[in-house]
């Protein structure tokens, strides 16, 4: 007999530059906000999972689980860091979800946190490259923009996806971000500015790339029984899926479709009993503007090759009603890698409560998609409004 899992509370710092903050102070701020939002008494929290990718490399600080728990005043709990590169905190949500679902814990706190700003560009690139297989691809000099540059060139070749369609993703997400107080970028950007920005890994240009970001976000997961007692209203977790995918670009049969995302989505839709046509709002992993196009196809919102044209199409003239990345996405809200997964859940929960600055009308079903490495560790969560 499995327990229905609910998101009892969410919290977040602003995403952006926090040069004078430690990892633990950002994590504690987000966690306290989520705990207050949840109304769940502290003594009900049995586990603390801290999602973090490169805290050790960038700041020298490890052992974030016990440190964050102690700073929150939580004693005698299970507290540990979870690492799955850019999907660290959504992977932690999946683990916490399973514990509540199995009735092993009645309440779990998941916090994602990262500090990335202020480092020299080469040091940041090297840190991010820790999520690439260093023995093979790292040896060839592949970087994350490089991976997505290969994907973008091939997507354009196979489907006729245009430079303007890809740039339109960045323009759309900057426009959303400009209206989200938590977003790192608060100004819209033009198509021309994206296309004229300096190349990073051709055909990817600077404004096709998400920024380096500091920030933290947190989620409190509880059983339905505890949610009923303390929380009103609560969002139900209809599906929580984590799967692995190919870890090397050479392992893909076709690099414009990512098995991890396809498989995670298929399993999540099946668990939730809904399909892509039912999703009202999605926060997906737009680490680069081409990634939003590829992911929206792999999640089933558009057919293969149709992601590009649909970016420029009016919502009413598309074959999917979903609104994608109204938070501004990784491109504009920012990408504090280890915090991004919890940040996406924060955004979708706000949508399903009807409290988002870029509110999608009557949003009932929300989806988050978070990828670690080159889509090597992928989570999909489906959430249902109260």
């Amino acid at each position, binding site marked *: 007999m499995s327990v229905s899992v609910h998101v009892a509370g969410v919290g977040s710092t602003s995403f952006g530059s926090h040069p004078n903050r430690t990892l633990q102070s950002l994590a504690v701020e987000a966690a306290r906000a989520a705990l207050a939002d949840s109304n769940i008494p502290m003594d009900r929290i049995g586990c603390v999972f801290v999602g973090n990718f490169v805290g050790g490399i960038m700041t020298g600080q490890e052992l974030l689980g016990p440190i964050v728990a102690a700073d929150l005043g939580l004693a005698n709990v299970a507290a540990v860091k979870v690492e799955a590169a850019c999907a660290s905190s959504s992977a932690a949500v999946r683990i916490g979800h399973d514990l509540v679902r199995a009735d092993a814990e009645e309440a779990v706190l998941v916090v994602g946190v990262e500090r990335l700003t202020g480092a020299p560009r*080469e040091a940041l690139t090297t840190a991010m490259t820790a999520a690439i297989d260093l023995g093979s691809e790292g040896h060839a*000099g592949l970087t994350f923009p490089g991976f997505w540059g*290969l994907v973008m060139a091939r997507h354009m070749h196979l489907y006729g996806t245009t430079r303007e369609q890809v740039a339109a993703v960045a323009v759309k997400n900057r426009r959303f971000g400009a209206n989200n107080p938590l977003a790192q970028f608060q100004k819209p950007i033009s198509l021309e500015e994206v296309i004229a920005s300096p190349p990073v*890994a051709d055909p990817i240009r600077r404004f096709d790339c998400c920024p380096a970001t500091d920030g933290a976000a947190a989620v409190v997961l509880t059983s339905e029984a505890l949610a009923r007692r303390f929380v009103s209203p609560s969002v139900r977790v209809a599906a929580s899926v984590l799967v692995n995918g190919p870890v090397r670009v050479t392992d893909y049969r076709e690099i414009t479709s990512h098995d991890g995302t396809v498989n995670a989505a298929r399993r999540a839709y099946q668990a939730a009993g809904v399909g892509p046509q039912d999703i009202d709002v999605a926060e997906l992993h737009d680490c680069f503007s081409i990634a939003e196009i590829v992911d929206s196809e792999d999640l089933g919102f558009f057919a293969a090759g149709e992601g590009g044209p649909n970016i420029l199409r009016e919502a009413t003239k598309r074959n999917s009603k979903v609104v994608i990345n109204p938070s501004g996405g990784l491109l504009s809200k920012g990408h504090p890698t280890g915090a991004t997964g919890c940040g996406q859940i924060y955004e979708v929960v706000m949508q399903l409560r009807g409290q988002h600055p870029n509110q999608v009308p009557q949003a009932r079903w929300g989806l988050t998609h978070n990828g670690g490495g080159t889509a090597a560790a992928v989570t999909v969560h489906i959430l249902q409004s109260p």
Partner: protein
Amino acid sequence: MMTGNKSLRGTVQSHTIIRVPGKSHAADAPFVLLLVELDDGERLLGHFRGSTPPAIGARVAGGGADNETPTFSIAGEKS
């Protein structure tokens, strides 16, 4: 991935130019990176002798020592 000293022939699946490298390749940038499907079906990443990438679908030939990333050039007419 063993490439040996044998000659490699294949087709360009995709390409990029790495302009912001990690520390290990700082001295090489910018450089062209190719995803190549070899004629035996194996896929690998290779460098390219030239600053402008070949078109997707172009035939390339290359080689390199064991445990080194191979370097490719446009294949001759008879490939």
